[in-house]
């Protein structure tokens, strides 16, 4: 196994084939799996998307965000409200929810972005709670209180209504693949490196010319935008949103997806989401014991693999000044 992975890392062609096989499996899966397991895979996709969105904030920049459910909720409620009140189609609401959530994130994180480590962590927990409680208290009668909002439409593309588990499965996984692709490209760019510089040493990054504040805000808004998309898909799938879906526990689960997988690692995030969303399924026979075991499993993974199950490996660059330098 280890040999295969090493081979994949060193040979770009082998890697491309592996990615191709993986994509083919993703496409073929719903034609072999039962509706129930296709649904499970939909939620896996949703959690992967949430994991990727938090990975931008937590994994790339090292900002401890334990209130990610707030952004997810914001996206879901934006979709729910605009769809039920103004009949805006769900798919059109994807970019709108993303933008609205990004705007919300920008607004609320601007004053707290300078906080470090644990302090930021606590503020984000508080933020998550404020959003949940506010939704629950139904300000101005727009969030529907504890019952939430129901009667959300199904997404439509032309005449096709996305309704079955398989259709939802493809909708979410197309978005996941697009996001993963975009994030991988960002990782190997000036933007992704700047994020990593901040994570490694904030002061040094600032002194190397990185506008730390701006890049942290960028990560928060981008991550929130993706969480907003996840919220949209969730609202469309459930057709109802209510505050109890966006608890602190959800924020913790997404946080754990990133850390279990490996900070800043896209394949790791997928693996983390796989563990977090399949765990309850695989341990279904154990019913009520599964969360107990999950708690133990978290401690165990952090003991044996503190950097996560699939940590990011830094890219080696092909030299641009070439051989002459190598000889020198």
């Amino acid at each position, binding site marked *: 196994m280890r040999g295969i992975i090493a081979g994949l890392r060193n040979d770009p062609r082998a890697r491309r084939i592996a990615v191709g096989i993986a994509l083919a499996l993703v496409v073929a899966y719903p034609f072999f799996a039962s509706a129930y397991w296709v649904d499970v895979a939909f939620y896996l996709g949703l959690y992967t998307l949430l994991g990727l969105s938090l990975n931008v904030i937590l994994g790339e920049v090292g900002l401890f965000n334990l209130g990610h459910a707030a952004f997810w909720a914001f996206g879901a409620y934006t979709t729910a409200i605009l769809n039920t009140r103004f009949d805006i189609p769900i798919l059109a609401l994807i970019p709108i929810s993303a933008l609205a959530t990004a705007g919300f994130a920008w607004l609320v994180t601007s004053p707290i972005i300078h906080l470090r480590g644990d302090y930021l962590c606590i503020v984000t927990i508080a933020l998550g709670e404020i959003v949940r409680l506010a939704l629950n208290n139904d300000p101005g009668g727009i969030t529907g209180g504890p019952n939430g909002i129901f009667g959300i439409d199904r997404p439509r593309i032309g005449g096709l209504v996305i309704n079955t588990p398989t259709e939802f499965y493809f909708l979410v996984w197309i978005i996941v693949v697009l996001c993963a692709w975009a994030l991988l490209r960002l990782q190997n760019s000036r*933007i*992704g490196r700047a994020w990593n*510089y901040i994570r*490694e040493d904030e002061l*040094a990054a600032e002194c*190397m*010319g990185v506008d730390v504040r701006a890049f942290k805000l960028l990560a928060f808004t981008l991550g929130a935008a993706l969480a907003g998309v996840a919220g949209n898909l969730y609202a469309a799938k459930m057709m109802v949103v209510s505050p109890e879906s966006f608890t602190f526990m959800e924020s913790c689960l997404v946080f754990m997806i990133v850390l279990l997988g490996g900070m800043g690692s896209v394949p790791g995030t997928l693996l983390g989401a796989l563990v977090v969303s399949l765990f309850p399924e695989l341990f279904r026979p154990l019913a009520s014991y599964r969360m107990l075991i999950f708690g133990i499993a978290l401690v165990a993974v952090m003991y044996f693999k503190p950097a996560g199950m699939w940590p990011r490996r830094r890219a080696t660059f092909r030299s*641009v000044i070439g051989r002459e*330098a190598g000889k020198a």
Partner: protein
Amino acid sequence: MNDAAILEVKGVTKRFKGLVAVNKFDMLIRERTIHSLIGPNGAGKTTLFNVISGIYRPEEGKVIFLGEDITGRKPHVLVAKGIARTFQNLRIFPNLTCLENVMSGQHCRGRCGTWSSIFRTPRQRAEERRIQEVAERWLERTGLWEFRNELAKNLPFGLRKMLELARALATEPKLLLLDEPTTGLNDKEKEDIMEFIGGLPEMGITVLLVEHNMNVVMGISERITVMDMGEKIAEGTPEEIYNDPRVIEAYLGREEAVA
């Protein structure tokens, strides 16, 4: 010798909770020279250094860089203007490769944002190439070429110090601020790094060297400013400083006696 001033510190005062760390300090650094700032431990050198590089905002006074008032500007703005620095206690990015470390210097020379990075526009690709090229050149010049794909934390201490220097140089600075670049190095490494620093003015880079050990800077500096208890006590050529009774007192009177 070029007479144009690159950096002027005018009456800078920095206090911490009533404690005066730097007091009405004046200093003038000329282009393409190596200027040293020395003084015993706790003299306020690093504080002044942090004021110049934008980490602290002084309570009084001005810092003027190439005729522009830069007092209180943030470090990342100053880097873009051409002031780079290193840290006394070494602050590299441990879990990134050496190449990525040095590429950070070119960050401020890049312009490409999120969208162009996702879609890899031709402009973005050209920019990435340039960032990498500059970084590679500096790795080569500092003798770190063979370690370019090594994680920075795996380098021995001396090379990490060199890496930090390469990283600062990759910002294409006009003024380079070095905070005790030889601390923790053995004699051979000290010699190497000082020789390297000595060559920088020829590349058009002005150096402000902060040192606590007077002997290190004697041979290399054109001018030396001596600081003690937050104030300037002497300034001049190495010979003048060497014979200045106030300097001898500041150093011998306290520190050597303790040591």
